[in-house]
């Protein structure tokens, strides 16, 4: 191959070495992506900081009345839903109590049963109907805001009088326009990666806020048992 084609189609080069020119381009790309991630986070927290505090107050209220949180998402967002749940179940900060959170994608028997017998759109709804009660909370992650199984679960959760919280991306999709959500935190980016990176930061902060808001309750409980 002549040099012109190699520069236009580097994947045709079968030597598998990384030319210095490519290496420096990759280094620049790393920094550009990190800057982009920072920019997206700054835009999100500037716009939605107040909404995040309101959401934390709602989640704190769920726990204050002895309720439970349920979490859901698909794919990478399912991992975020699991991460959200474990933050509450197994707090990393010593002295903070464990709070009940149930990840709805954890039960493979239930997921495959409902998915196969009823439909994938119902995998979260059926679990909510079986497990949730008035006053509990439901949090869902969808980078597009258009996941049908989440939207269906939010609608039912609202009918069951659960507190509902959505983490979305882009323009928020259907989730942002749905009457089934009390709080919808939308990261203004079309990049799924940048959206999910911001979600992680947001729910870490939310977890912190919830515990701060629950301090008075914890204090009373600790005082009562002493």
């Amino acid at each position, binding site marked *: 191959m002549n040099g012109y084609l190699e*520069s236009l189609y580097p994947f*045709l080069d079968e030597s598998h070495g990384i030319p210095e020119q490519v290496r420096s381009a990759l280094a620049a790309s790393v920094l550009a992506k990190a800057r982009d991630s920072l920019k997206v986070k700054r835009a999100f927290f500037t716009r939605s900081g107040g909404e995040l505090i309101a959401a934390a107050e709602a989640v704190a209220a769920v726990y204050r009345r002895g309720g439970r949180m349920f979490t859901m998402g698909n794919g990478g967002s399912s991992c975020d839903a699991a991460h959200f749940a474990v933050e509450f179940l197994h707090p990393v900060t010593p002295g903070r109590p464990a709070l009940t959170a149930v990840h709805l994608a954890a039960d493979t028997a239930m997921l495959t049963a409902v998915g196969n017998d009823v439909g994938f759109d119902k995998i979260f709804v059926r679990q909510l109907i079986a497990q949730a009660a008035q006053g509990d909370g439901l949090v869902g992650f969808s980078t597009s805001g258009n996941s049908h199984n989440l939207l269906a679960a939010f609608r039912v959760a609202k009918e069951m009088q659960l507190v509902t919280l959505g983490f979305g991306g882009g323009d928020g999709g259907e989730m942002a326009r749905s009457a089934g959500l009390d709080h919808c935190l939308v990261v203004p980016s079309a990049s799924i990666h940048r959206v999910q990176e911001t979600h992680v930061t947001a729910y870490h902060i939310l977890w912190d806020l919830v515990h701060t808001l629950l301090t008075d309750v914890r204090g009373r409980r600790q005082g009562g048992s002493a």
Partner: protein
Amino acid sequence: MKYLEEFREPQKARALLREIARLAGRIDTCHRRPLQLMEVCGGHTHAMFRYGLEALLPDTVEFVHGPGCPVCVLPMGRVDDCVALAERTEVIFTTFGDAMRVPGSKKSLLQAKADGADVRMVYSPLDALGIARRHPDRQVVFFGLGFETTMPGTALTILQAHKEGIANFSLFCNHITIVPTIKAILDSPELTLDGFLGPGHVSMVTGTQPYQFIARRYRKPVVVTGFEPLDILQGTWMLMKQLAAGRCEVQNQYRRVVSTHGNAAALGAVQAVFELREFFEWRGLGSIDHSGVRIRSAYAAFDAERRFAVPNVRIADPTACQCGEVLKGAIRPWQCKLFGTACTPETPLGALMVSSEGACAAYHQYGYARSDRPAASPAAPVRAAT
């Protein structure tokens, strides 16, 4: 007409069709579905419909219309960027005509022109450079769009502007490369293609050499093919001969234009001016690594993206639009729920309806309208998708 009629002779076409049918009968014995051949280039798609070639092929051979129409794969956000540039008072925005009607999220360049923006249609980037010479008090932006075919012309224009020191000329670069996209299609887990009619115009610049990986790594035959009816039928016949013999090679049907090693002067200009982007977004196909180019820093003064604040916002396609599925060959244009109703050449929603080289526009223009669906009319020349 000399150099045209000899490529449109009915007798030769009939002979090729007979041979194709004979080979299809042989190949059919070892395939349980129709053969699927992708014509990569939008020019091929247009020619096939113009001459009704698809309807003449045996039922066991299907063409899948590939992503080789640069206007069709332009993401909506880039059109919005064009409009934002065009609406700047100091800018004269110049573009090829077929990009004028591509819908952005709010308006097309044609609508921006109607609203007062100074948008001018040109036939060559050198025309845009001429406008810059005549209007030194204005900023002239050229909308660089197209595959390897048009890239050298833009590169040479930048070199010319640099040589003349024309400071009020810049390029909004949206040039893309087709070869990585063919690779992305081949890497698709749903791949059902049996062979490729390689792009004729792109290969005029690149030569046939870049396609060797398709035969070697993916075991798919490629025949680089011209655009006249006999070119396409001969290219199809050559593909079928390879498939019948179990061969996977890169062959060149378009020898009167395409060489093995391409045009060194054109490739040299491209290499001097452009470098690869890490990735580029294709409408309907998503981001494809190393599939677009940008201006090298040595010529940064001519880069409109650096000269102006371009919004660069990604816009999702309309949810009902199925251009992506058509581009990947998953559905036929008439199977899109918008085809011929909400989306027509007069009021296009999807990009495939905008350009005459788009598959939807070709289906619509040559009479494959909704009412002609095979389900509704058994005599219709289009076969149902598998």
